[in-house]
């Protein structure tokens, strides 16, 4: 396996910049997830690594060589597509064998390699079937087998789980993680599903409008989002945010002044920020009688293991509180007082959206 590095990679389609100056290094044996909403450029970035799109600017390196001018077939990478891209007229066996044939692997070796890949993904009973006779999950495994049979330097996966139903997705997710660990593979995995990103990746790279927003371990990205976009994109339910003016006493939102942790307030003052956005994750809000923020409960969503209490503030802004099911449930229409854990408050510059509290 190998490292993959992108240096200042840009891809333009006419006037539209799909990927803008992307610099990113994927380490050897790393599982990196490219995460972002649809149209953020993550798939284009992946296709450029594969060689299916040419970068307008920048260099792409796989292993030790720059591959900008190398044909896709010579880049020694394998890709798993969202649609699986299995050849419908070929049996599972021939699908898996297909990449070996083009590389002139001797016939006797091919059979062994196909069998090994099939065994690894429990596909042995289906070798003589055609893709149409398989379930979605089985097709997905055939696509994976076709990718691993070549033992490439890196695997590229473009939303490979999004065509599976929810239950199968959870199962396949675990299988993919296990496979990556077993093969010690370098994987670049594109998804718009943050749960996949959080659970699968060693690191997550979040993109928006072609620009890389933040790269980091899932827990770091969750705990310290670099900007407002990441803060709102990562986490379900999303982070609560309120905008206000920075004053000596804290953040002033309408009539209310929310005190800020000293470090955050100091950093904001040093950066010259006047208008800021305060963010707090739903699990860091608590319901009590002495809280600073008054809110009215509009909906209570009971999920079994936890509860989401959706409230409206006096200015009609929505705010979500996550609480364990063991806590007493508020009733709809009830007026509550909410308090925020100052340790977990995030502060962003309202103009640039960047995090100001380090």
């Amino acid at each position, binding site marked *: 396996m190998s490292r993959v590095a992108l240096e200042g990679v840009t891809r333009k389609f006419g006037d539209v910049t799909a990927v803008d100056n992307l610099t990113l290094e994927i380490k050897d044996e790393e599982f990196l997830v490219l995460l972002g909403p649809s149209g953020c450029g993550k798939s284009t970035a992946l*296709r450029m690594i*594969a*060689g*299916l799109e040419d970068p307008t600017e920048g260099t792409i390196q796989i292993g030790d060589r720059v591959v900008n001018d190398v*044909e*896709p*077939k010579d880049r020694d*990478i*394998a*890709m798993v*597509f*969202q*649609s699986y*891209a299995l*050849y*419908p*007229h070929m049996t599972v066996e021939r699908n898996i064998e*297909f*990449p070996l044939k*083009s*590389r002139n692997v001797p016939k006797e070796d091919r059979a062994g390699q196909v069998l090994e890949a099939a065994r690894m993904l429990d596909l042995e009973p289906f070798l003589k079937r055609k893709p149409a006779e398989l379930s979605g999950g089985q097709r997905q495994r055939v696509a994976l087998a*076709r990718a691993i049979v070549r033992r490439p330097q890196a695997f590229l996966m473009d939303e490979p789980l999004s065509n599976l139903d929810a239950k199968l997705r959870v199962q396949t997710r675990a299988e993919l993680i296990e496979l990556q660990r077993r093969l010690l593979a370098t994987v670049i995995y594109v998804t718009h599903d943050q749960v996949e990103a959080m659970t699968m990746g060693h690191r997550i790279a979040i993109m928006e409008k072609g620009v890389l927003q933040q790269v980091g371990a899932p827990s770091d990205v969750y705990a310290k989002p670099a900007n407002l976009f990441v803060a709102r994109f990562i986490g379900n339910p999303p982070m609560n945010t309120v905008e206000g003016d920075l004053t000596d006493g804290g953040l002033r939102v309408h009539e209310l002044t929310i005190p800020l942790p000293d470090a955050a307030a100091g950093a904001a003052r040093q950066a010259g920020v006047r208008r800021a956005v305060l963010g707090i994750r739903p699990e860091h809000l608590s319901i009590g009688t002495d809280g600073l923020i008054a809110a009215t409960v509009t909906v209570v969503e009971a999920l079994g293991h936890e509860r989401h209490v959706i409230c409206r503030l006096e200015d009609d802004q929505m705010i979500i509180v996550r609480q364990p099911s063991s806590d007493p449930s508020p009733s709809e229409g009830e007026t509550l007082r909410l308090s925020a854990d100052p340790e977990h408050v995030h502060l962003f510059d309202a103009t640039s959206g960047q995090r100001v509290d380090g």
Partner: protein
Amino acid sequence: MSTTDGVLAAGVPEFTTPAAATATIAAPKHRWGVFWRYLLLSVVALIVLFPIYMTVVNSLVETDEFSKKFFPTDPQWHTYSDAWTNGHVGNYLKNSFIVTFIIVIGQLITATLAAYAFAFLDFPFKRTLFIVFLATLMIPFEITIITNLQTVSESGWINDVFGVTLYDTYAGLAIPFLATGFGAFLLRQAFLGVPRDLQDAASLDGYGHLRFMARVVVPLARPTLAALAVFSFLSAWNQYLWPLLVTRDDRLRTVQIGLKQLRNTNLQDFNVTFAGAILAIIPLAVLLLVFQKQLVRGLTAGAVKG
């Protein structure tokens, strides 16, 4: 019309369940519809088949009984062997087969290559070129026939003008029909149905355009290719004007010209000419029976997808 609509239209009381209504009222109505449809189809079939039937009858009766009998009481089977040997129908059929084979293979190859380019490659003026391809469908062959004839005769492909080989003669018969705008259009539509991801996957798997076309696109478009093959076969087999113009040696003539020849040389034995005509349509009849589905697909593909 749905079952419920049918029930309401027939004024069935409300307490009748839709299933019961279908069984008691809608079904006979449906059966009459089928009856009339089949009656109409049978009448049309009779009208279409009658001349063919009379050709069979006339090929088996004595010349003086020609068109007087609707059933041969004393079938003259020798007319068929006469047509085959003395009338050279066997030889004409062989020529037709060779020329048709060359045309069908030629059209399949050129149409596949052109359709692949239009479906999978990006190049300047692609759209304009495709429209030009389509425009060729509007030009009747008769308009270009003089130019084609000149091209072919100057190339030395007509026999006995320059005394060239037999192969060249077949080439002369086939050459104007080796490319087909219709075929390129038909196959392009089919190729566009091949998911783009397959092309990407194949290019990562190490397959260039030609190998991707041969290993993935062509096998996936096999039904459409079969339809095109049947269609090409029919039009090549039924050609008359061009073979008449580019062949002068009777040994190289195709069956349609051969039949005309047969009539000229067998003025007394009209039944032999009829036998020849029947022999000439046998390959087509077999083809139609075997490839009915593909032919219908070929004829409707443009209408449905275009």
